[in-house]
């Protein structure tokens, strides 16, 4: 058998890439080689249910599945975090999440249901869906077709896409695996009940319930946060609820929650309100993943192969980015395959696309590691989520929504350089957040009971909404450039807030940790600092809008004694910033 493209593995990544090939490179002869046969269970199939903006855009718009998503899955009310004391009532925990149902759509997906539908669609569209086929080996060849050896014989193909999930056929064969900075494990299960966060809060908590005007809080991916861990609660259209524990190795031993029985004990200890709700509810499809995170050295090659989905890399589920990377890897690979079959694949373009993908992966690995203390600190977490969403919507989502991977080589180069600038900014931000949480006195009363994310009428809400506007490459670039400038002011504000909050002695340690006066390269304007000494109205008139918006959302640090020290630190930082090449 011979094909233009052999997709090894027909899970979410493989089925999506086959569909995308059918839509964008209709002349390609495509085979999907998948070990399992139908029927597959609807709900209790796989994790990776929570989809955020980028992957939802991929499924809805790029793959044209919008109607299917609306009819067969749940529209999601964003990501919601409940922080603070897990031993007390849920209503007393600070809440970070959307105040209004987000305009940019995202979904909770029943994986079995979606994969069944995708298998049927692929078949209808003329993809050769070969089920019950076990791929044993992929032999890459420099010239001519690659060779795929399977339980059912050999398949030859011009392109091979490894979509084998954790099996990672190519990564293992080529020795591409790299370590990830995330060291964490997860365990999960489904329950037949609709477990809703509102059920854990008595009716008498009127204000907590009143905040949820439309009764849509339960449609969020709910994260219960504690030091070194978080628990997900994801509602599914099939009526099931997905529950999972994700815990960092530095604070929680895997053996503490790696069986159903231990899981119950773990929940009773760390999340007693949820444990009470689940007391008589059977756990179905209990699954675990020890030390789940890994990186890779390569995902895409002009030598006619690509790794997509978990066959490429997997970092961490905190912000549900797994399927975002799947969406990007698929799209970048399909572009290269299209170019190749039309006879004009430029290896340099493939290299740029891969460079962008690996840079975004590195960016996310900064965002997703070193967070144990932050998970237990509502104030720092609120600030972090604000920045992380800004970073996510400002570059990754803009890049993807504007379909910039289709651009010619010189444009790709320009956007890769832009990605690098956002990466540098994020590196600064994560340094501040990590050190701030580490140096902060634990157990402080949280500043806000509810942090709207994004808060209405803020720079962040505007950025989010802007994803729905069409933009060509030129306009997208201009907006990224403008948002990056706002981002510089925002990260500077993170630093100012952290310094003020920590007070004079610890501020010096923070300055040391983030490299103030050494490699901290963002400008700190003297006007911004001087504004701290002024009355409210006067101060606000001098703040950049993004700084005011951040304070409106997450609150403001006040420490009059820290101001002098802050000014001194900033002076040193400014000198260094002037000297450092930008």
């Amino acid at each position, binding site marked *: 058998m011979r094909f233009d493209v052999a997709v090894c593995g027909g899970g979410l990544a493989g089925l999506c890439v086959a569909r995308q090939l059918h839509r964008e490179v209709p002349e390609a002869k495509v085979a999907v080689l998948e070990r399992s046969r139908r029927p597959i269970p609807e709900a209790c199939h796989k994790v990776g249910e929570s989809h955020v903006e980028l992957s939802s855009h991929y499924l809805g718009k790029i793959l044209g599945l919008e109607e299917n998503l609306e009819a067969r899955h749940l529209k999601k009310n964003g990501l919601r975090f409940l922080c603070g004391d897990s031993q007390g009532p849920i209503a007393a925990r600070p809440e970070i999440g959307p*105040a*209004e149902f987000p*305009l940019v759509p995202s979904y909770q997906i029943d994986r079995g249901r979606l994969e069944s539908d995708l298998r049927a669609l692929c078949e209808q569209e003329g993809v050769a869906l070969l089920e019950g086929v076990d791929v044993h080996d992929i032999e890459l060849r420099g010239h001519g077709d690659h060779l795929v050896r399977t339980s059912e014989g050999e398949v030859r193909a011009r392109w091979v896409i490894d979509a084998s999930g954790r099996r990672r056929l190519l990564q293992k064969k080529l020795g591409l695996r790299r370590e990830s900075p995330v060291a964490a494990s997860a365990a999960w299960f489904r329950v037949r009940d609709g477990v809703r966060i509102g059920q854990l809060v008595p009716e008498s908590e*009127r*204000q907590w*319930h*009143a*905040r949820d*005007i439309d009764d849509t809080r339960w449609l969020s991916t709910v994260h219960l946060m504690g030091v070194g861990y978080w628990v997900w609660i994801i509602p599914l259209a099939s009526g099931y609820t997905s529950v999972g524990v994700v815990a960092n190795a530095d604070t929680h031993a895997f053996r503490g929650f790696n069986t159903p029985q231990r899981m119950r004990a773990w929940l009773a200890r760390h999340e007693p309100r949820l444990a009470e709700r689940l007391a008589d509810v059977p756990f179905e499809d209990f699954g675990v993943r020890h030390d789940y995170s890994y990186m890779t050295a390569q995902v895409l090659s002009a030598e006619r192969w690509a790794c997509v989905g978990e066959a490429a890399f997997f970092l961490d589920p905190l912000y549900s980015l797994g399927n975002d990377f799947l969406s990007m890897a698929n799209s970048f690979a399909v572009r290269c395959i299209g170019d190749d079959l039309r006879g004009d694949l430029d290896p340099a373009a493939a290299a740029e696309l891969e460079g962008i993908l690996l840079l975004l992966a590195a960016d996310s690995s900064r965002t997703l590691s070193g967070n144990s203390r932050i998970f237990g600190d509502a104030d720092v977490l609120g600030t972090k989520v604000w920045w992380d969403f800004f970073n996510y919507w400002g570059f990754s989502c803009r890049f993807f929504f504007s379909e910039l991977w289709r651009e010619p080589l010189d444009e790709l180069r320009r956007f890769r350089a832009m990605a690098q600038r956002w990466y540098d900014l994020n590196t600064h931000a994560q340094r501040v957040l990590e050190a701030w949480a580490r140096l902060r006195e634990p157990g402080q009363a949280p500043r806000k009971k*509810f942090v*709207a994310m*994004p*808060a*209405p*009428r803020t720079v962040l*809400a*505007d950025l*989010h*909404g802007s994803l729905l506007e069409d933009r060509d490459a030129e306009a997208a670039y201009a907006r990224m450039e403008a948002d990056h400038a706002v981002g510089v002011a925002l990260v500077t504000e993170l630093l100012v807030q952290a310094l003020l909050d920590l007070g004079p002695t610890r501020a010096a340690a923070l300055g040391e940790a983030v490299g103030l006066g050494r490699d901290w390269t963002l400008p700190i304007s003297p006007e911004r600092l001087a504004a701290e000494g002024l009355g*409210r*109205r006067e101060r*606000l008139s001098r703040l950049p809008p993004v700084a*005011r918006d951040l304070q*409106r959302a997450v609150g403001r640090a006040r420490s009059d004694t820290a101001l002098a020290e802050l000014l001194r630190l900033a002076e040193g930082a400014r000198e260094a910033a002037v000297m450092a090449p930008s």
Partner: protein
Amino acid sequence: MSMSRDEIMEKVVEILSDSFELDPATIKPESTLYEELDLDSIDAVDIFVQLRDLTGRRPDPEKAKQIRTVDELVTFVEEELAAAERGDPEPETPLPAT
């Protein structure tokens, strides 16, 4: 959810003092929001977002715009609570638009 006028006033004072660095003692029923308390239109958005938690309703921007004093704000909350009690529909384009 019934609240007395005094309870509402207490809540309003709490929201204003917590959010805008105001001394609770300076917040009187007759205080004007934009002059005496020195708030601006962005602050107004934040006030109404927080009042939703109290009323469980999205406010009508036309009504909200008319409010000048703390006392009027209290009356507004009172009316919103009554509307919620009656199950009145929300305004078509409520505050806050994103």
